[in-house]
């Protein structure tokens, strides 16, 4: 070791050396040189410590939670299955969520001429048939699920019968192998009847019946779900207590935490999204804290974003709606996703793509992804 130091010292003022008749074992070389390297490293560390003071130790701020979100299975039998929920922590760095957020594409039982142009242009060719429409959403745009809205059953729309509704459901079930969300027309008197007929037509397929709420005969919707093996969307209007009451009522009808998905209401970006943020955050915190009436996955009617004038209204001063619409829908959904929402009802392929990409990172461990080098962004950014 001393010889090595002397040698290194000798070499300090030397630019180059010539070695004659040199022979050394490899092991020996390693053994001899290590202490010198270690010393050199220690020295450089000492230098650094002079300038960089040592802070108290960094400890990741992890919490433990007494409660967890239950898992809900959609799709059953030959149909592909999708699982929602299952979170045991609030944030990914505490525990990644077991299931990624899911997007379900909106499909309608009538051609829907009122849909905004940026959406219509993707589906114009299939709007006559809900089965074709659903197929395109799955095949061309990678939908994990499809929502069939039975808008045509509305008494003021086409007043389709429960039998016709059942036929539409059968058409979509045959066209795709992903799970379905089945929505009514929003008519509180007719929806329970329609959902019951649809539930029967889709027996044992584990669809999500949308929705049960306090303004309609939720018992009938719950019974249809229990009888024909489906889950129920429990819809409350930005009110945690209303949500708890409705969930409690639904569980009295025989549904369990594993059969309920909550819709705490998505107010669109610019139209009260902050109320949804507050309610959804409180709901998820309640679940993790152990409130059994809130331990279900959550859903977002993200398509509400398209009702915002900034998304659809032609106005040259605001730029093209082709860009505004998808951004509005994406940001509305994304904001809800960051509050813990598990399933998103959406319309535009671009919005779905971006949201899915972000959502897929939610199941990965912190520090498990290879990241690009950002250190020179100031010079590397385009002009």
């Amino acid at each position, binding site marked *: 070791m001393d010889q090595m130091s002397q040698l290194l010292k000798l070499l300090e003022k030397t630019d180059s050396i010539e070695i004659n008749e040199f022979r050394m074992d490899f092991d020996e070389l390693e053994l001899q040189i290590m202490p010198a390297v270690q010393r050199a490293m220690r020295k450089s560390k000492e230098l650094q410590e002079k300038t960089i003071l040592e802070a108290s130790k960094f400890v990741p701020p992890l919490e433990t939670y007494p409660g967890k979100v239950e898992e809900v299975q959609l799709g059953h039998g030959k149909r592909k299955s999708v699982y929602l929920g299952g979170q045991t922590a609030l*944030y990914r760095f505490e525990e990644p969520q077991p299931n990624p957020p899911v997007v379900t594409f909106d499909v309608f039982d009538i051609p829907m001429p009122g849909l905004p142009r940026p959406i219509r242009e993707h589906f114009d060719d299939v709007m006559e048939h809900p089965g074709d429409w659903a197929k395109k959403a799955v095949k061309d745009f990678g939908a994990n699920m499809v929502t069939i809205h039975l808008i045509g059953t509305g008494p003021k729309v086409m007043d389709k019968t429960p039998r016709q509704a059942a036929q539409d459901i059968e058409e979509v079930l045959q066209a795709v192998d992903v799970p379905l969300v089945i929505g009514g027309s929003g008519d509180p008197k007719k929806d329970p009847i329609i959902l019951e007929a649809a539930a029967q037509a889709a027996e044992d397929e584990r669809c999500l019946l949308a929705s049960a709420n306090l303004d309609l005969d939720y018992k009938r919707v719950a019974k249809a779900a229990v009888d024909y093996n489906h889950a129920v969307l429990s819809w409350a209007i930005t009110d945690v207590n209303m949500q708890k009451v409705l969930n409690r009522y639904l569980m009295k009808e025989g549904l369990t935490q594993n059969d309920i998905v909550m819709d705490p209401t998505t107010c669109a*970006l*610019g139209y009260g999204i902050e*109320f949804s943020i507050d309610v959804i*955050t*409180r709901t998820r915190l309640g679940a993790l804290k152990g409130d059994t009436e809130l331990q279900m996955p959550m859903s977002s009617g993200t398509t509400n974003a398209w009702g915002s*004038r900034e998304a659809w209204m032609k106005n040259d001063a605001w*730029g093209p709606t082709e860009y505004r619409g998808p951004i509005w829908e994406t940001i509305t959904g994304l*904001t809800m996703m960051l509050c813990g929402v598990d399933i998103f009802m959406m319309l535009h392929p671009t919005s779905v793509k971006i949201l899915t990409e*972000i959502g897929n990172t939610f199941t990965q461990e912190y520090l498990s992804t290879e990241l690009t080098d950002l250190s020179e962004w100031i010079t590397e950014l385009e002009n």
Partner: protein
Amino acid sequence: MDYRAGELKGGIKLRATVMDIYRLLPKTNCGKCGEASCMAFATKLNEKEVEPIQCTQMAEKEREKVEDAIAPAVREVVIGTGDKAITIGGDEVMYRYELTFYNPTALVIEVSDDLSEEEFDAKVKTIENIEFERTGELLKLSAIAVRNKSGDVEKFAKATEKVKNSKLPLVLCSFNPDAMKAALEIVGDQRPLIYGATEYNLENMADLALEYKCPITLFVPHDLEKMKELSYNLRSEGINDIVLDPGTYVREGTGDTLDEFIMIRRLAVEKGDPDFRFPIMGVPAVHWIYESGLGTMVDKGIREAVTAAKLMNSYADILIMHGTEIWELIPVLTLRQGLYTDPRKPQAVDPGLYTFGELDENTPVLLTTNFSLTFYTVEGDLKSGDANCYLLVLDTDGRAVDVSVAGNQFTGKAVADLIKESGIEDKVSHRKLIIPGLGAPVSGDIEDESGWEVAVGPRDSSQAPDYLNKIKEEAK
């Protein structure tokens, strides 16, 4: 039952109570601050309604103690001076509903020092002039970032010189201390935000921050342990106006960046870690590195807007962006407006009768709800469309039309009562009410209860002036 996150915090108390503050005051109840007692003053200090300096009876040392006691979990950092100063940070909570979020996220657009003179000037002008009005508020950008893309000291100084007289405050972006010094020689008295100190230039940048008394950004990508170390080091040198940039990773890196933003804020708010009690910076502009050659300008703009929204939702206090397209900025400005409204203030306007333009007994009568977002939107549309009409505003406890229809605040009975109480029946000779499109489900109910004829108007009030014109034409 209350679901405040506080109950999860394991009993860590960060904020001083009113009693803690009171103990630090003179307790003389002299009244010179304008409050009846020191206790009243302490209460207002706690609510941030008064400033410690309003108490003239404290020595500077005592006042510092009070300031310490009421300091927010996240330090407030001022960028710029005088009229063009902005403040970032200041937050106390993890969740908006627990209190409110303070100081809206600063939206900054960068300008490269490598642009031609015309391009540079044009971009600066665009940034200064972008505005978007919604619900009675004018939304604008917050600052300009000069970016040392060229890597050249002279060019950076020259570019800085050009924005010296801008009406917006400045962020100076260079990792080269010589370039930073050259720029600070020009605008150092304007309190620009220095960007940034890294582990490689920390000493030199820290010296500049001290010399020019400017706030400084720590850029430590993807390494919170090192960030803590460097933050501690800056603080040890007496630097307290610090902004933290843990790096903005996008696409598959999104999850790690979200984790890091949230960890920093939780360490500040729930753990009181002094090395992290600073505003956080995000740089959505990085989409213009990642996707060079990929995607179009439009894709990048869409993704940049989405990243800005994502980080703003995850505690970003300042964002540096690249794009200036209005369609990209409108959603980001809108989200900021929503996130930073104070949830403690009622989101309702006074119900009753409002008037627009010239009125007579044939003037049409419209109806909306008293949710402030709804009301200001309708009001803005009626004004910009030069409409002549009455507007009845229904008390729905500040709920929007569709929400109050579903929640049974918007009912035939409630509308009938409003018609009676408002005295509108003495003002017009007709009995015809135009309700919002989303109120259609209760139209029959209103007719039954009030005896008025109900017409269902457009779903969106932007169409209301056209609708009124059409009725007028038809009446002729």
